[in-house]
């Protein structure tokens, strides 16, 4: 019964989104407010239907209704409740339904928040949003249907993939990733609407920027969570291996970050409109490419699914979307006229262009590296790999230059700058750069790229801190007290700016933490018998013994270790080998002792319960935790910048004026 109801809801969502899309585009051409209102109603209807379907599936999972195909596939009576909830997105079909759920939420909210505003762009934006929605509903209704009926219904199911039950991060990473990925549909709609209308007016920049910023925050956190999960769970002591699936999440993030910067140039100078719109479209297309990469089975990756009809269907959508964007750009980009000009090369807007060049270069490099094995196989049938050594060699230098530009850009003023101004802005931070590098040298860091990164980080820190508190300092110069100056200058009025500089400071922190933790990492392989103590990386490690622990869904062999430093006990670590039912090879789980100074990480290579011996690999790396913290601060800084200030919100609400019917295009 539930399965049938689910199928009905999905089909209804398909019709609602298809009809709404057509209405939206029609209203965009005819400029009819009535047509727009109908499109909006269908948008809400689509949202309600698809969200309903998702809740229905959750209900089926929680009540263990094995007559529903997806529940029979991933449900189980013997797994904890949180695993049952999470299994909605644990497997292919459910995850596409989850995509629909997130898309429905975004479309509903975007439709709500644009009520009465941006009436010029709304119809086409809704048309684009609902076209994407229709595709995903089609996917759920057809090739990826989770609501198939299973008859006779089995009594129990196998449960979701064992790897997913290993760590609670698996519950959080996919939702964040989807909130990021799927959210890129909304700014995509605005960008296409701007091209269809032939203008990117000042008024639509704010929703475009905010619609881009919110998913960007989620995607940033999602990427970090993915790395953190790999670190805590996979046991190889690292967090990023340039696996195709990891790259899939990174590619749209790179273009979205470039777009967020380029949009600032549009706001300030009225130039780079076409370029910004291109970047937003590229972001969405990379999202679709990313989802193709993860689901199609074409790429050799940790995340592989077997090939099915879903892959070609997504590829078809990618093709249609790509050609639509190219057509739109080719025929309409010249209509997005520049309103201003760039004054000089030593200006902030010039640095924004360099920033964009570097981000696009990074995107291109990561993309090329990921698809290159496919290219070679298509050209001459040879099978080859492009792995971590390639990506590290390419990305590290580009990243270092990007960090440098992060320092130089905010130092330069907007517009033309005299050589005096340039010298005054660019020379003093060099001192901080040298100090930072010296500190790194004394901390025994000898790697060239790490020292360079630290130096650039120091440069950027000097500039960022200076710029960050500029409004406050200016107010204090005029006689304001420090606290009011801070509250008014930074928190009430200058939120966007302050938030932006917090993000930059966090980026510096992340770069330095990554560079230092990678180049100063110590990896040692040791063999222990019970009771044996060995010195490693400044710690005394004692093997207390191997125990077996049984849980309903797995059996683990645990190696207990006592960690001490200078005779004082620090902690006990328990890395494990887990044997899940139905999986041939056991999956190891490492254990990490994390401090602000660094991580002490144990992973089991093998462990013998009978002989009480074990072989382990010990990784010791400084500053690792600051990578995760920095990225969270990035998200918080951006979130802070999104909060509207009271004064501006009031002003904006007074300028709600829909274009009168039949109005002709003005500039």
């Amino acid at each position, binding site marked *: 019964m539930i399965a049938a109801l689910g199928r009905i809801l999905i089909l209804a969502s398909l019709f609602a989104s298809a009809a709404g899309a057509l209405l939206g585009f029609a209203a965009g051409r005819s400029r009819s407010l009535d047509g727009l209102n109908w499109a909006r109603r269908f948008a809400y209807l689509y949202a309600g239907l698809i969200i309903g379907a998702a809740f229905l599936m959750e209900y089926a999972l929680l009540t263990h209704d094995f007559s529903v195909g997806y529940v029979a596939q991933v449900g189980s009576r013997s797994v904890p409740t949180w695993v049952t909830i999470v299994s909605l997105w644990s497997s292919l079909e459910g995850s596409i339904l989850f995509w629909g759920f997130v898309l429905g939420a975004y479309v509903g909210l975007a439709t709500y928040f644009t009520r009465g505003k941006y009436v010029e762009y709304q119809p086409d934006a809704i048309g684009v949003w609902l076209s994407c929605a229709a595709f995903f509903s089609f996917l759920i209704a057809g090739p990826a249907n989770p609501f198939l009926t299973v008859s006779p219904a089995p009594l129990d199911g196998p449960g979701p993939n064992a790897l997913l039950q290993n760590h609670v991060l698996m519950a959080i990473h996919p939702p964040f990733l989807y909130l990021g990925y799927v959210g890129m549909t909304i700014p995509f709609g605005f960008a296409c609407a701007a091209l269809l209308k032939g203008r990117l007016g000042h008024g639509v920049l704010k929703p475009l920027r905010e619609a881009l910023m919110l998913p960007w925050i989620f995607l940033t956190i999602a990427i970090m969570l993915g790395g953190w999960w790999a670190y805590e769970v996979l046991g190889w002591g690292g967090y990023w291996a340039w696996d195709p699936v990891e790259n899939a999440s990174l590619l749209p993030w790179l273009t979205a970050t470039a777009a967020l910067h380029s949009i600032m140039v549009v*706001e300030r100078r009225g130039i780079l409109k076409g370029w910004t719109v291109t970047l937003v479209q590229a972001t969405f297309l990379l999202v679709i490419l990313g989802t193709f990469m993860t689901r199609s089975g074409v790429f050799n990756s940790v995340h592989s699914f077997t090939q099915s009809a879903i892959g070609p269907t997504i590829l078809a959508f990618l093709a249609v979307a790509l050609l639509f964007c190219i057509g739109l750009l080719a025929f309409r980009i010249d209509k997005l006229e520049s*309103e201003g*000009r760039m*004054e000089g*090369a030593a200006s902030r807007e010039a640095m924004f*262009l360099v920033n964009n060049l570097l981000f696009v270069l990074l995107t291109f490099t990561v993309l090329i590296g990921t698809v290159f094995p496919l290219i070679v196989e298509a050209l001459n049938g040879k099978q080859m790999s492009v*792995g971590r*050594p390639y990506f590290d060699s390419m990305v590290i230098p580009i990243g270092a230059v990007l960090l440098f530009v992060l320092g130089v850009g905010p130092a330069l003023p907007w517009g033309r700058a005299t050589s005096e101004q340039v010298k005054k802005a660019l020379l003093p931070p060099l001192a901080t750069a040298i100090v930072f590098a010296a500190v790194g040298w004394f901390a025994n860091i000898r790697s060239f790229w790490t020292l360079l990164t630290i130096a650039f980080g120091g440069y950027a820190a000097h500039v960022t801190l200076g710029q960050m508190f500029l409004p406050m300092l200016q107010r204090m110069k005029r006689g304001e007290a420090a606290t009011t100056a801070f509250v008014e200058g930074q928190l009430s009025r200058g939120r966007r700016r302050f938030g932006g500089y917090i993000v930059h400071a966090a980026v510096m922190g992340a770069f330095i933490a990554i560079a230092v933790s990678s180049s100063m990492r110590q990896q040692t392989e040791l063999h222990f018998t019970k009771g044996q103590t060995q010195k490693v990386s400044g710690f005394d490690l004692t093997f207390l013994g191997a125990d077996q622990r049984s849980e309903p869904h797995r059996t683990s062999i645990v190696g207990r270790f006592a960690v001490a430093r200078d005779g004082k006990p620090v902690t006990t670590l328990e890395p494990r080998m887990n044997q899940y039912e139905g999986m041939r090879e056991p999956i190891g789980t490492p254990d990490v002792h994390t401090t602000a100074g660094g991580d002490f990480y144990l992973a089991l290579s093998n462990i013998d319960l009978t002989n009480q011996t074990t072989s382990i690999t010990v990784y010791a790396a400084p500053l690792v935790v600051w990578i995760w913290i920095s990225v969270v601060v990035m998200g918080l800084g951006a979130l802070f910048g999104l909060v509207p200030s009271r004064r501006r919100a009031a002003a904006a609400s007074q300028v709600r004026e829909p274009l009168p019917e039949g109005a002709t295009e003005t500039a």
Partner: protein
Amino acid sequence: MGKKIVLLLVVTLSLGAQTLKVPDAAQFVGQPQGTPVTGAQLTRRTNEIGGLLRCPVCQGMSVADSPAEMAVNMKGQVHELLQRGYTEEQILTYFERSYGQFVLLRPKFEGTTTLVWLLPAVALLIGAAVLVVTFRRLGRVPATSNQQPPTAPDDAYLSRVRDLVSGGKS
């Protein structure tokens, strides 16, 4: 008696002649061309070269990072070959011979594979050229003059006022 001794010797020698023989790198890449490595340097180099070899049973992990037994065997081979004085190139060639180019995580500078190293460099040059051209183009005064002038962000009210006051001048 002498004949028995000779027979015994022949049998022993022929038995000894057939010994355990596993395939060795020497068969495929010849004699070691570098110097033997020892101590901490040996561990470091084993991990470095292990990082260049792809574990054939895992998805994308390197031999240095993977706990799979096949990877541990391969890493052991790398360790031994380094001890005997084989160079990195010889070791990589040895594994490439039996596993194919697939096992090399760092693409070779050879034939079609060089492209993956060259294309980003080409992209950088093209991008830089586009940048220079864009600098020049954006430095010119815009052709149309009935656009709204650039305004402070989010101040839509102010931009309307400016519009009315300036009468549409750029």
